[in-house]
């Protein structure tokens, strides 16, 4: 028997959201379907629903972020939760101790959910193993490992534009090696049964055995995006690079930067995505970023709805578990 998935309760409902690995297609589709409902909240005069009234959500950002932090904050507020956002600089030497200490202190304030971003892979998982029962943990990005809400907002954006995943060719371009976003996208695309998944990158920005990611590998951008329905550009993660992995950003753009001309081989109705923040003139030029095929800003709006859905599902599960306990 496989070990129980820490993310799920004994009935398979979502309790923590740490990684897309090991989650079923049914569960991913359930998240996407719920997101459709939450998308409408932004169109209400009062952009709020009362689902998580009385709950407290703590955003623990050990690594800086603007978009992810603010969209998580807005998502929690639109669910009527109270939100604390803590920007904590990561301390590498006493990481474990600092983390648990912070955690115990916040638990003493009766926090119901932690949203965690950390430079170390596995940090959110570590916290989920140590929180009190009844508290949920959501991974907002851990090292190179996983960024599951980003993965799901990308799937949601693709589904809204393209529908059925089985017919799609999806090309992911750029720094695969350091990208937790790519890892989450690849896991989700596999589970949702995408027709063909490609990764396009220089050899220095690919993991040792790129084929193990379940994708076709290309080193030429024009070839890689040929007939693609979806082109996902990744951010070049200078902060995670050690040594000379790239000659220069200029040279990177010459080979792997997306321009209208290089996009010409993709399907005419292809969409272009980027998790942000964009390095204009490095991953893509402004013409593409602001062009008609770009859905980059839509990804941001969708991100709030996806995060609302995931938070509501986790808190809903905890509510149900608390109710079961009360009757035992």
């Amino acid at each position, binding site marked *: 028997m496989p070990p129980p998935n820490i993310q799920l309760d004994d009935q398979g409902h979502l309790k923590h959201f740490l990684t897309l690995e090991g989650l079923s297609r049914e569960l991913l589709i359930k998240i996407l379907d*719920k997101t459709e*409902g939450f998308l409408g909240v932004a169109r209400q005069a009062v952009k709020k629903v009362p*689902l998580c009234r009385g709950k407290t959500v703590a955003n623990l950002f050990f690594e800086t972020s603007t978009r992810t932090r603010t969209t998580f904050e807005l998502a929690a507020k639109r669910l009527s939760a109270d939100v604390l956002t803590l920007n904590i600089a990561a301390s590498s030497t006493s990481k474990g101790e600092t983390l648990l200490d912070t955690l115990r202190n916040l638990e003493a304030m009766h926090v119901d959910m932690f949203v965690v971003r950390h430079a170390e892979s596995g940090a959110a998982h570590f916290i989920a193993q140590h929180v009190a029962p009844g508290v949920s943990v959501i991974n907002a990005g851990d090292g190179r490992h996983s960024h599951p809400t980003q993965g799901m907002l990308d799937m949601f954006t693709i589904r809204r534009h393209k529908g059925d995943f089985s017919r799609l060719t999806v090309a992911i371009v750029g720094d695969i090696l350091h990208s937790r976003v790519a890892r989450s996208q690849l896991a989700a695309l596999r589970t949702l049964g995408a027709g063909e998944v490609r990764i396009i990158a220089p050899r220095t920005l690919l993991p040792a055995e790129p084929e193990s990611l379940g994708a076709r590998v290309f080193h030429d951008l024009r070839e890689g995006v040929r007939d693609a329905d979806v082109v996902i550009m990744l951010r070049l993660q200078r902060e995670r690079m050690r040594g000379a992995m790239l000659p220069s950003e200029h040279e990177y753009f010459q080979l792997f930067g997306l321009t209208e001309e290089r996009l010409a081989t993709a399907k005419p109705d292809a969409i272009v995505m980027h998790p942000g923040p964009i390095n204009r003139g490095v991953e893509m030029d402004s013409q593409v970023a602001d062009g008609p095929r770009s859905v980059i800003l839509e990804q941001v709006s969708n991100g709030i709805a996806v995060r609302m859905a995931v938070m509501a599902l986790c808190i809903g599960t905890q509510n149900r578990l608390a109710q079961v306990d009360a009757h035992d």
Partner: protein
Amino acid sequence: MSATEIYADAAALEAVIARMGTALQDKLTQRGIIDPLMVGIHTGGVWVAERLHRILMLDEPLGVLDISFYRDDFSRIGLHPQVRPSHLPVEVDDRHLILVDDVLQTGRTIRAALNSLFDYGRPASVMLAVLVRRGWRELPIAADVTGLDLKQELDRDGSLQVKLTGPDPLALVLGHRQG
């Protein structure tokens, strides 16, 4: 539901809804409302509302409301398994609304629907039309127009469930909760 029995079939229900249409028109005339907005509650309420909308020949498009995010049992059972997008095509501010649902029982659905509506704006008034009214109210909520009253002898059974199936054909089925 386990064993089910049809309480009213499509023909009977269409006749009931036609009568509701007439009753609604009378109420609107009485109150001097000329251009109401109709909003159906997912899912059964939308089926009834589509028919009423046609009968009353309303100009404004029909709104649909999902009340999952406003239910009071989230704190007990979590997120409702079926969440559908709400869609109110017209601003509700200062408009006269007709809210339509299939079965009025505890009144909790209508409470949730009213809360949801008021997050879209401040309507001038809200009227309630329901296909079936039964007992067991838990909140001070009443319908302005009712299609059918469930027979008293049936309604005494608290475990009896009344469910509208559809959208085409409509049927009202009775059954008992399992377990």
